[in-house]
């Protein structure tokens, strides 16, 4: 009986105390008609030794891969201290800090997180996490619709330069509330929002918000200042969906245009979270102070105790489902706390300079990569505008097969765009973070050369 401490004698004495003679009696209220079809072959559990052997061989099978894919998930350096601390039992095995006095560790850390994330985004405040970057964008959209009382519109402008999966997730999550996503085309030359698509006719009933990605899914840089001012002048709120490492160097949402974006959200994974096949990651969501009551998710406030000593507690809980139930700002309950723990320690250990270096290193490695790949016959850069740390290249052969061949060499060659953007032809989204060495880039290029010729 793994993990069950009861000795036979204890079980017996507990049953005696209850006044029943066997455990089965405790289940007597379950109608016998429901008593489970016993499993076909009752399976014995594995010991830790056995499961270790199994999972070690599985992990080893997946190991040793060199990654040139980004597209929303990035392999960055993570200081060892981050996860050595994050997996300490007191963080790892604690519950949501509803009992504030017994959770000051988690609560203070989350308050620190909120502060750091606000600063990184140039925003007033941050919540304590959502599930991931995609659902954070959905929550931002719902929030914008609630918050934009003037516009009354339930329509949202969302450019095609936003991650395709994000657009799908937002659709799944907001459609039942009657919210409509209107997509903006991109400029085929620049790979950024096509300015022509911004003309709004007078009959147009308007939009609650405009979503602006930075960098875009293509790695390019939207003209965030112009877009923000344009949206504001049309009564829309502005939602920035941004990469947090990029924000160490690029203009953060709070500095966009004349007034800054209203909401900033994105995927927190680049901040110390491993790739891990896509999760757990965490979504961040920041906003202006005025919107705080529309914010979904947990918020930690600093306050004082009976002795007037500083302390931290969950606050504005009336926004949340456990208080407001069907009128809550969101249904979210369990969030991604431990990932935020890691991200907070990560940001502390890297510091501003460390994050800037990471941004700079990813920028220059990606440029190295693209320049090297561009020397190969049949490879071309798809867009002419500047890009941050990933870029679209087009190839002379179908991408899917090429990626399969690279996979046999344990190289993840990038992300195939041909399904989501068939108009781009054989398009591949490639990325090289600060982790990729010159040797690895050369190895990738050589492999590509061999395949293409």
């Amino acid at each position, binding site marked *: 009986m793994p993990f069950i*401490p009861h000795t036979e004698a204890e079980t017996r004495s507990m049953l005696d105390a209850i006044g029943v003679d066997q455990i089965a009696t405790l289940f007597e*209220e*379950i109608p016998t008609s429901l008593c489970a079809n016993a499993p076909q072959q009752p399976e014995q559990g594995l010991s830790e030794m056995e499961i270790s052997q199994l999972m070690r061989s599985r992990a080893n099978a997946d190991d040793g891969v060199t990654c040139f894919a980004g597209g929303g998930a990035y392999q960055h350096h993570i200081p060892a201290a981050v996860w050595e601390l994050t997996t300490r039992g007191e963080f790892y095995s604690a519950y949501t800090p509803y009992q504030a006095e017994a959770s000051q560790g988690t609560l203070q850390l989350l308050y620190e997180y909120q502060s750091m994330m606000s600063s990184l985004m140039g925003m007033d*405040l941050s919540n304590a996490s959502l599930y991931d970057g995609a659902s954070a964008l959905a929550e931002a959209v719902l929030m914008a619709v609630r918050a934009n009382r003037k516009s009354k519109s339930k329509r949202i402008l969302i450019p095609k330069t936003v991650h395709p999966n994000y657009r799908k997730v937002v659709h*799944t999550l907001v459609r039942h509330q009657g919210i409509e996503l209107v997509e903006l085309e991109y400029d085929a030359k620049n790979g950024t929002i096509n300015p022509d698509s911004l003309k709004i006719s007078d009959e147009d009933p308007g939009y609650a918000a405009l979503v602006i990605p930075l960098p875009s899914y293509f790695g390019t840089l939207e003209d965030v200042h112009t877009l923000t001012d344009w949206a504001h002048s049309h009564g829309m709120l502005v939602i920035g969906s941004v990469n947090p490492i990029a924000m160490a160097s690029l203009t953060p949402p709070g500095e966009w245009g004349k007034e800054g974006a209203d909401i900033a959200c994105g995927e927190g994974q680049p901040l110390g979270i*491993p790739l891990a096949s896509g999760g757990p990651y965490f979504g961040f969501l920041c906003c202006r102070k005025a919107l705080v009551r529309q914010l979904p998710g947990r918020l930690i406030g600093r306050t004082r105790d009976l002795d007037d000593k500083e302390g931290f507690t969950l606050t504005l809980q009336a926004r949340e489902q456990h208080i407001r*139930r069907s009128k809550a700002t969101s*249904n979210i309950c369990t969030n991604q706390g431990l990932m935020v723990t890691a991200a907070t320690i990560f940001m502390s*250990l*890297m510091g501003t300079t460390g994050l800037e270096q990471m941004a700079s290193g990813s920028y220059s490695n990606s440029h190295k990569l693209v320049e090297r790949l561009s020397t190969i016959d049949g490879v071309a850069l798809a867009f002419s505008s500047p890009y941050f740390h990933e870029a679209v290249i087009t190839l002379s052969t179908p991408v899917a097969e090429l990626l399969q061949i690279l996979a046999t060499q344990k190289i993840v060659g990038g992300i195939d765009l041909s399904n989501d953007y068939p108009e781009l032809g054989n398009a591949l989204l490639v990325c090289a973070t600060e982790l990729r060495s010159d040797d690895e880039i050369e190895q990738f290029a050589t492999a590509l050369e061999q395949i293409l010729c």
Partner: protein
Amino acid sequence: MLIFEHSQSGRINSAQRTAALQPLQEIPKAMLRKQRAQLPEISELQGVRHYTQLSQKNFSIDTHFYPLGSCTMKYNPRGANTLSMQSGFLNRHPAADAELGQGVMTSLYDLQEILCEVTGMEATSLTPAAGAQGEFAGVAMIRAYHDAQGDTARSEILVPDAAHGTNPASAVMCGYKVKEIPTNSDGDVDLETLRQVVGPQTAGIMLTNPSTLGVFEREIEEIAALLHQAGGLLYYDGANLNAILGKTRPGDMGFDVIHINVHKTFSTPHGGGGPGAGPVVANKRLAPYLPIPMVGVKEHEGTSHYHWLTEAERPESIGRLSAWSGNVGVLLRAYIYAKMLGTTGMERVADYSVLNANYLMKQLQKKGFTLAIPERRATHEFIVTLKSEAKELGVSAMDFAKRLLDYGHHAPTTYFPLLVPECLLIEPTETEDKATLDAFVEAMVAIRQESKENPEQVKEAPLTLPVRRLDDVRAARELDLNWYNQ
């Protein structure tokens, strides 16, 4: 002290430098940050020391008994952590070719199968990131089903008044109105009312069984029949699955779709609030609508190849819930736990979580505490109401909760479910030993005694923690959410 108070302008943790700082030459100046971000500028030792010290201010399963009802705070096996943190798992890009991830995908596929078996259902999607997202998925699937039948008039979801807040909130996110169903004094759904409200407008009902009152819904078969006859579907909130694992299955009870909180029943860590995972499992009727991606298998030359099922293979799916495929790292932990238990171990989970709850309930009752539903068996949890203590001694459930912290026990869940006044929802879980339960009873008795002799001490508790009782009103009124904006 806050980490920012350790910060010193110009300090760099140079061991963590990754690249020389160079200008981003091709980036237009207007796109560059004007003011540098303000992150702490600390040494690595300062960071390690600060966060190590902070961690010590937490209660956690690894340090304290945590009988938090509805949350299933049981031992999180360390083996599951170590094994899911291997580099082969951690360094896999989610968009990498499936052939580069057969290790993780095999495990996820196996987990899908295990969850089907455990719940008596047809198919699993692992993608929901938590219970609430699982609820959203399940209700959206119900909606998709009705829509597919052309049955678009159904506008209501029924939810018992004792339900968790996420249930109504999720139903609303799916565009439904929520109708609350009262609970009778035995803790069962009030069947009379239910009969009256079920009708052609009913899309479905969301139930937990055992309910959040800690008792098994005995009329579940009748409820299922009632709903199904009216064309509605049944959603099972799997948060309380711990009590019935291997004993009875939601699929057999008549439920159409269920989510599972693996961070409860399958013992993945709560991490101070998350992440968890909320796989949805559906019967034949609802399986086509499960969220994508799911893991599929193809046999090729005698070996199984696992791959992602997306829109192409699952055209009726409600769609995607996250950018990739949910909280894979959490699911791996759940898988490891499930494999360590086997089906025999799962039944033991139910046996001993229910034994512990009934024992603890009985001992508290013997000591004179009032049970919310005294005449019934507890499941994995039960409710004590401190109504009379509140009235006679002037100490509230909150006071008891805070004082328990001083005694080294995390507090039970307080004031939930909302319909029981001054309640403590107590869930000991199967991984606690008898001595710990006995110590908890002693603490409860001692606090009641203190409440008679020295009620101030109880009302001002906790006295021994890093902070005394915190001012929540001030926190909400003088919002201070960002150190840089004080």
